[in-house]
């Protein structure tokens, strides 16, 4: 049997599952682009006029409209957008004239850095605090960390960003308030982005840990005299972390796709801020390109989380069909 057919056979349900999910991603991405393309076509204003300026002669505007294919029916315009997008061509920015894809590609590493650091901060805070809270349920540490986590979930992150700027760059002068110069400029945005996720991960770790601790096999371990720290670290943690890893993965996807406000607060040169700037300038190709790109990144991360889930939890693997 040929190798690729082997992958699809019943002997490798995991690969088959991954291929199937990757395949299912295509209609979703097509749908997303259609959705955003349709929304964007409602945008009032003539792009040709926008590019040439208010004072441009009517003939020139009409000529450019024809050249850009703006007079074509919706479905034709959408088809050509998809056709170009597949080859990595997302059109040119109305305001800068540069390739949208190139611009996204040059900015994406910044967004990725921020999301990665944000998630790392969230894990470093969230997982230990969640475990400690669960092992000392209803203690002072537990209640106070739950209150802090609740505040973290309730805080708008753009406001937290401004407050951190107020304290650490305006009052203390320790860190830059925005832009992208050296490593110190990444600290505040990453903290801002990570706080909400840290709160969510803390809550998830705590509740998952509490659920596991109550199970019989933990009681068995304790009954046969296993030391408490071994019970927690070896027996309970492994199972408790399975749903936490899912949440971490989903948070990563969310930070990647939803860091728009944080990037705006800190003037961070990422894809999110590129989108907000493009909206202000009514730069439709850029808005379209960034939304579709971020949605694709978000979907891919979610897919990766699903697959990872199967690797760490053998019970799920048997469900792949």
């Amino acid at each position: 049997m040929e190798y690729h057919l082997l992958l699809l056979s019943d002997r490798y349900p995991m690969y088959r599952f991954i291929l199937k999910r990757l395949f299912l991603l295509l209609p979703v991405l097509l749908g997303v682009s259609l959705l955003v393309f349709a929304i964007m076509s409602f945008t009032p204003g003539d792009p040709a006029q926008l590019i040439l300026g208010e004072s441009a002669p009517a003939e020139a505007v009409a000529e450019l409209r024809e050249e850009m294919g703006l007079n074509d029916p919706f479905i034709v315009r959408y088809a050509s957008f998809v056709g170009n997008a597949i080859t990595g061509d997302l059109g040119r920015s109305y305001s800068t004239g540069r390739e949208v894809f190139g611009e996204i590609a040059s900015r994406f590493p910044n967004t990725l850095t921020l999301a990665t650091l944000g998630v790392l901060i969230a894990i470093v805070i969230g997982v230990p605090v969640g475990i400690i809270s669960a092992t000392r349920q209803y203690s002072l540490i537990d209640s106070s960390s739950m209150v802090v986590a609740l505040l973290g979930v309730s805080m708008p992150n753009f406001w937290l960003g401004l407050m951190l700027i107020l304290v650490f760059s305006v009052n203390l002068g320790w860190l830059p308030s925005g832009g992208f110069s050296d490593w110190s400029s990444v600290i505040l945005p990453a903290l801002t982005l990570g706080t909400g996720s840290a709160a969510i991960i803390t809550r998830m770790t705590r509740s998952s840990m509490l659920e596991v601790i109550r199970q019989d096999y933990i009681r068995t371990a304790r009954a046969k005299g296993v030391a408490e720290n071994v019970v927690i670290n070896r027996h309970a943690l492994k199972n408790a972390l399975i749903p936490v890893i899912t949440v971490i993965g989903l948070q990563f996807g969310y930070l990647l796709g939803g860091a728009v406000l944080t990037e705006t607060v800190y003037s961070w040169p990422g894809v999110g801020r590129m989108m907000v700037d493009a909206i202000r300038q009514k730069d439709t190709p850029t808005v379209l390109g960034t939304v579709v790109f971020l949605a694709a990144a978000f979907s891919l991360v979610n897919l990766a989380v699903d697959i990872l889930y199967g690797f760490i939890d053998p019970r799920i693997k048997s469900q792949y069909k």
Partner: protein
Amino acid sequence: MSQQITADTLPEAVLEATRSAPKKRSQWLEVWQHLKRNKMAMFGLVILSLVVFAAVFADLIADYETVVIAQNLSDRLQGPSAQYWMGTDEFGRDIFARMIHGTRVSLMVGVLSVAIAIMIGGTLGAVAGYYGGRLDNIIMRVMDIFLAVPSILLAIAIVSALGANLINLMLAIAVSSIPSYARVVRASVLSLRDQEFIEAARAIGASDTRIIFRHIVPNALAPVIVQGALGVATAILSTAGLSFIGLGIQPPEPEWGAMLAGGRQYLRHAWHVTTFPGLAIMITILALNLLGDGLRDALDPRLKH
């Protein structure tokens, strides 16, 4: 014994039993009793009541035309004082008064957008779950497409295309949260669909519409209520976020996110302009989260004991 069973032919004892059977309301009474014991949820409810109170009586607390939107440049960017409890903004307007009036926009957008999302998402989810098969597949795949875009991105795209105003803002936030309600309702409809009381309703000839709206929807309500309470919180956050980047409520109308954005460039000299509206958002969201968590505990029979 081909006699039809009607109320007249039933033995008196059976009728008596139906009359004295516990009323349906008692279920909600029980939830309330449970909720009342949850101190955090009650704390949330009290704060939320204060916010609603502020929204209802905003005009008595501060006049809209003369205090909330009228500029008073001689008093601009003043710190908190006896006259201005939370100081003044860049146009010399009383931040406290604007914050109080800001509750109106936030609550209205929050509640209405969630209501729209529940109506559309709930109907789609109920139809998908009840009929199943191809229809279910089509509806849920479309929902997957919506879920593939982070909701704030979707809302931004919609508002930027349709134009920034109150109605479009509500629509955008509603549309971006439709899929989550569709999922929740579909899941509970699926679990209800094959239960005996539904079968019984179908056996006595109830129409699909009647079964969905009279029997399934009331029983599927609990998770929707929890999701709704948390959804209002998310909607208020999204409103503030969109206004913050200039895509929501437009000045001079007071909205917390827009107020924050206005104070951003004065952060260095006037901390209070950005600090207080943010606190207002945080406290309102906190109250909704506490109440939502409490409702979940009260409504989830699994956690009841």
